[in-house]
């Protein structure tokens, strides 16, 4: 089971901040393909991959990152702190 977290406009488009998923996805990209198929909101949220960032177990990662042993994956737009 992997916890999937969404922030900012991804959270708004998908309509939830968290969901739990049983997945066989090997990488973040595979997981995104799975998530996109879940609802129209998901498809809309993941439409523009260039404006997406991902964190795997709370560390910034690439979409090619493997998911073996991972507990938490978060998707969000580029950060605007400071």
């Amino acid at each position, binding site marked *: 089971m992997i916890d999937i*977290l969404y*922030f*900012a*406009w991804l*959270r708004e488009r998908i309509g939830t901040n968290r969901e739990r998923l049983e997945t066989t996805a090997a990488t973040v990209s595979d997981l995104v393909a799975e998530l996109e198929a879940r609802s129209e909101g998901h498809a809309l949220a993941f439409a523009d991959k260039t404006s997406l960032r991902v*964190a795997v177990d*709370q*560390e*910034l990662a690439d979409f090619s990152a493997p998911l073996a042993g991972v507990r938490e994956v*978060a998707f*969000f*737009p*580029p*950060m*605007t*702190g*400071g």
Partner: protein
Amino acid sequence: MRLSVQEAAFDLGAESNAFAAAVSGAGAVVTFTGLVRDNGGSLAAMEIEHYPGMTERAITAMMQEAKTRWSLVDALVIHRFGVLKGSEPIMMVATAARHRADAFAAAEFLMDYLKSRAPFWKKEIGADGAAWVAAQQTDEDALRRW
């Protein structure tokens, strides 16, 4: 080093004074404060979302990195989340070093990284609705100098 990610407002003067009073062997303290920018009075509020857990991890890593790059006596980061009004302080960075060059550089480094690598997202709420603040390419470019 101290990090506080908090919803509550902070007292800039009190925090700066307490930070400066606690550093020994420092000859320079640099502080930076970010305020909610009110674009011509059209902003009703700014909502700041963050990723609890990752926020602390990411900022702690930045602070540790700053300590390896410069000769710092101490560093402080306070960053708020939640709903803020125009002109309210959002965050502050303070650095202390024996000499000012290290304190200035470390403060700028922390600011550049906080902008683009700490998981915060700002939403501007105005009279006509709300909009997420877009990340600037210039903020991303600013990381390359480090």
